[in-house]
């Protein structure tokens, strides 16, 4: 295309050259030269405006088409031989290589879950993952949440259009875990499982709150299971985790799926109850727990007059944050290499 007005012809030449070099060719439409030409229209005497404006529009149109067509062209790349281990004509020293080992890293949450799982396994527990999309029955009903119960509000859950639920706690696996191991239980072997996985709560994001986080959940069912066993198991588990003797403290709580229910705290492993930045006044509230509600056992097909059990659920992020002194929970999901590479 040729332009009658010299100024526009010059601009066209400059911009077409630049377009060829741009990574995103459509960016040429944002060029200051083009904007300047549009600005210029206003300053011209009225009789010249129409012709000038028409040519500027033509230029813009041409650039637009060029940007589009180059996009089409680029898509047609040469095929490669995908069955080969490397490309044709690649010198030996340029063949595909891995990266330097010291740059690699495991996600800190997954590392912690490996540690927690290892302790659980050494204590004789199986480790099972949790679902990330579940139904109302597993998430609420099978856990003895009455319909419309306000307790459901505390678990402000994400839901899909179809009514499936992004689980707000790993307890969503309790019914499956117990019912799948009924035979084992009847053969005299208690059910003993740890469920570490991702959960979701409809909560606004800030330095201390994430809508996506991780829990570790313990489920134990057997004969004559009592509160003293629950507390002893948790004490042992957490002492192993923190690598030192701890004092424990319970506070009565309410969960629909346990009866009785507790909040469980340990003497702060960082200051030994002296009070510090991590714990405040010497105690670290670490998880919720209780004896499994008979209705939960019943719904999993287990007779609560013959068997009893306990369960606990705690957060993983907080453990990692106090361990490494991480001040912002949002880093975990940020995908920032500067963060990730610190966890070999």
């Amino acid at each position, binding site marked *: 295309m040729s332009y009658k007005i010299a100024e526009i012809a010059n601009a066209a030449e400059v911009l077409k050259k630049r377009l060829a070099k741009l990574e995103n060719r459509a960016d040429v439409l944002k060029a200051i030269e083009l904007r300047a030409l549009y600005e210029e229209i206003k300053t011209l005497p009225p009789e010249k405006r129409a012709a000038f404006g028409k040519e500027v529009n033509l230029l813009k149109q041409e650039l637009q088409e060029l940007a589009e067509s180059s996009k089409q062209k680029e*898509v047609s790349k040469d095929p490669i031989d*995908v069955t080969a281990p490397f490309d044709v004509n690649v010198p030996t020293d340029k063949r595909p290589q891995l990266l330097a080992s010291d740059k690699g890293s495991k996600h800190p949450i997954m590392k912690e879950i490996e540690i927690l799982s290892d302790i659980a396994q050494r204590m004789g527990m199986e480790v099972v*993952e949790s679902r990330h999309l579940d139904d109302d029955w*597993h998430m609420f009903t099978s856990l003895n949440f009455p319909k419309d119960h306000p307790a459901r509000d505390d678990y402000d859950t994400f839901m899909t259009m179809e009514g499936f639920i992004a689980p707000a706690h790993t307890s969503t696996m309790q019914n499956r875990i117990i019912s799948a191991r009924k035979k084992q239980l009847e053969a005299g072997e208690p059910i003993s499982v740890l469920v570490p996985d991702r959960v979701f709560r409809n909560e606004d994001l800030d330095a201390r709150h994430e809508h996506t986080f991780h829990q570790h959940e313990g489920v134990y069912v057997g004969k004559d299971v009592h*509160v*003293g066993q629950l507390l002893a198991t948790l004490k042992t588990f957490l002492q192993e985790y923190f690598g030192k003797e701890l004092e424990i403290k319970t506070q009565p709580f309410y969960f629909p799926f346990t009866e009785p229910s507790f909040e469980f705290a340990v003497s702060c492993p960082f200051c030994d109850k002296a009070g510090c930045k991590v714990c405040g006044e010497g105690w670290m509230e670490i998880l919720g727990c209780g004896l499994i509600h008979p209705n939960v056992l019943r719904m999993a097909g287990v007779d609560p007059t013959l068997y009893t059990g306990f369960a606990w659920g705690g957060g993983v992020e907080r453990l990692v944050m106090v361990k490494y002194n991480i001040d912002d929970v949002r880093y975990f*999901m940020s995908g920032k290499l500067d963060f990730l590479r610190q966890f070999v």
Partner: protein
Amino acid sequence: MKVSLNWVKELTDVKLTVDELVEKIGVQLGAVEEVIDLGKKYEGIVVAKVVACEKHPNADKLQVCTIDDGGTTPDVKRGKDGLVQLVCGAPNVAAGLLVAWLPPGTVVPGSYDKEAFKLEAREIRGVVSNGMLASPSELAISDDHGGILEIDDAKPGDSFSKVYGLDDYIIDIENKMFTHRPDLFGVLGVAREIAGIQHKAFHTKFWDWNRLAKPPLKAELLPLQVKNELPKLVPRFMAQVIRGVEVKPSSSKQESRLSRLGIKSINNIVDVTNWAMMLTGQPMHAYDYDKVKTLSGGQATIVIRHPKPGEKIKLLNGKIIEPRPEAIVIATDKELIGIGGVMGGADTEVDENTKNIILECANFDMYSIRRTAMEHGLFTEAVTRFTKGQSPLQNDKVMLLAVNSIVGEEAGGDLIGEFIDIKGDIRPPVSVHARHDFINARLGLELGIKEMAKLLENVEFDVAINGPTLAVTPPFWRTDIEIPEDIVEEVGRLYGYDHLPLELPKRSLTPPHKDKLIELKNQIRNTLAAAGANELQNYSFVHGDLLDKIGQDKERAFKLSNALSPDLQYYRTTLAPSLLDKVHMNLKAGHNEFALFEFGKVHYKGEWEPGEPSVPLEDNHLALVITNNKNDPQQGSAYYRARKFLEQIADTSDWRWVPLADFDLNKDKWGRNVVAPYEPKRAAVIVQDDEIWGVVGEIKTDVARALKLPEYTAAFEINLGKISDFKNAYTSLPRFPKVEQDISLKVPAKVTYGELFGLVRSEINAKKPKHTITTLTPLDIYQKEKPHKQITLRLSIASYERTLTDKEVNGLLDEAAKAAEKKFGALRL
């Protein structure tokens, strides 16, 4: 739930120190959020008598006063008569008044929680003022700042906080603890529990009351009609008309008591309803009888019903709302006058001109109240209590309490008619039977049956011991006791969980089953990290635009109905979108070359979990992206680099790498989403039974541009469910030396490496001497001119039985070359 310790002490003995009590409440009742020492706020403030007032010599509106504090305050400048001088600007200051004096050194209580203002003796226009006299607002007991507080009943030198009951501790217990305990939303319930956990018997003396303060007059004097159209949602509705009340500010004791718990004093009538609520947990409401009558057609009428379309009401908080159609409203026969259990209407408010009132004490369905409160954003003290499910058996008792307080103490007046009491079938709690050994087994205790009974009786349970069984009848306010496990909790809590013996469960030596998938993931994680890649985690939800950019069908992705933002709207059908999205930001942060990987669970609408068809199929995926900001053309395609990482984690020798361009996507619908971001000519799919279970390749140009990916970028994604085992194989080592020979074959360019390699390998395997092991590795792939390429492979072969000769190995390669010539027209160079 805020509790005043002084109020608790009116109801039960507390011998413990505040710290001990708070500790015990935490362990046996619920977590304490905060303890406020109110007395501290009033430290040093004393009651004083104004002895004389004179006009300030240099200011018209100020007075110079001398006050008598009984000489109790030390370190203050006194006159010869022992009196103290100060300057006061309050309009009501006068000789003879009893006032609150803040001596120098004290802090103004109204400023205590903000910027504490500490007084000192200073000159005001030339006259020394030793502290100040304070208004109710400066004393933080009400909003009134029109003048100084006038104290009715005290003597100079008394501690101000003691006179006003402000030498108090406010213990704030987390509401969450009490979700199932409506009774603990009243001081009475908490006091009862405090007695119980101290192992002391409690008795609610209010519930024994059965006498009205005055006999009622005839109902005809001020008739009231009540009609309940919602018996299911309102199981009980009580009303009482009182004639001739004197509406005025409450006594200072009442005002102070409510203000300590954060309730603003309105007038003596409203304050009684709030007092009754704070005491028992049962909300009440008071209407102006005459206003109700005016708004009624004829006689004063109250109707409980749902709102009609378009009906509006102006509430006590000044807002005008149109209640949701299912709300419980209180109306006359014409107009709305309240939202039942949530908030009253402004048009029937009790004010200083009110003469006759209607008191309401009702029970409303907790779920209905909750939904109304949520929909209209009305979270009142009444809502907090009704949503816990108050017992309808308490209404008559609380009504009696309130009526007697109004008529007998606070406001006078006459009761008109008997209580109006509309109630349905209200049943008392049923007894629960729990065996003594059952309770001990659950707690790991060995308590005696009588000991258990005593613990329960202390908090007013009715307990009968029948042999080994406790027959426990809960008091009417314990709506939460239904099953034997509830008795276990009660006994355990009242006994004290901190005293339970700890004992680990006995276990057998059976090793716990290991989950193969978790094992596999852990191995892969270690391997990829050792290969220099970085594991990241992404949200399970992505923006619809991102799916569009990637070219995936978002109709097949589960969509959240209540997403926090459009950024988190869709469940991922594959990991690629959010993984690729994390590349650009890391390049921008200055990292030039890196590999990111992620494990995740993905879902695809329409696919169900085998064996559990009520929930969507959940597949475990692994994806990795490798990128380099600088593209070195000599390296060739990034595809090979991504493949290199993939080969680290699985034995790929038997995999079929099918060019994506050649795969018929109609065969695998999910596959279409998996491969969407990949460039068909420069990507391979890994196929099993016509199903794609993995893909590796370069990213399409338009996707790369949309996500600002460098040219040298490739990724892979695989379904981990299809990889049975981690790469791991061993072949025994031969004792005889191995022989290595190369073979270079020139083939037409269209012959793939895989075809040629496969042919050579199978030919060698078929023709090689017995008891040998071979490895075949690529050395070079060279293409100068278009029609041909040259592939060089190295054969390494060793025998378990003998030393092989170069000649026989070369012969083997010749055989392979012959087969290649026959099939592809290959030429051995």
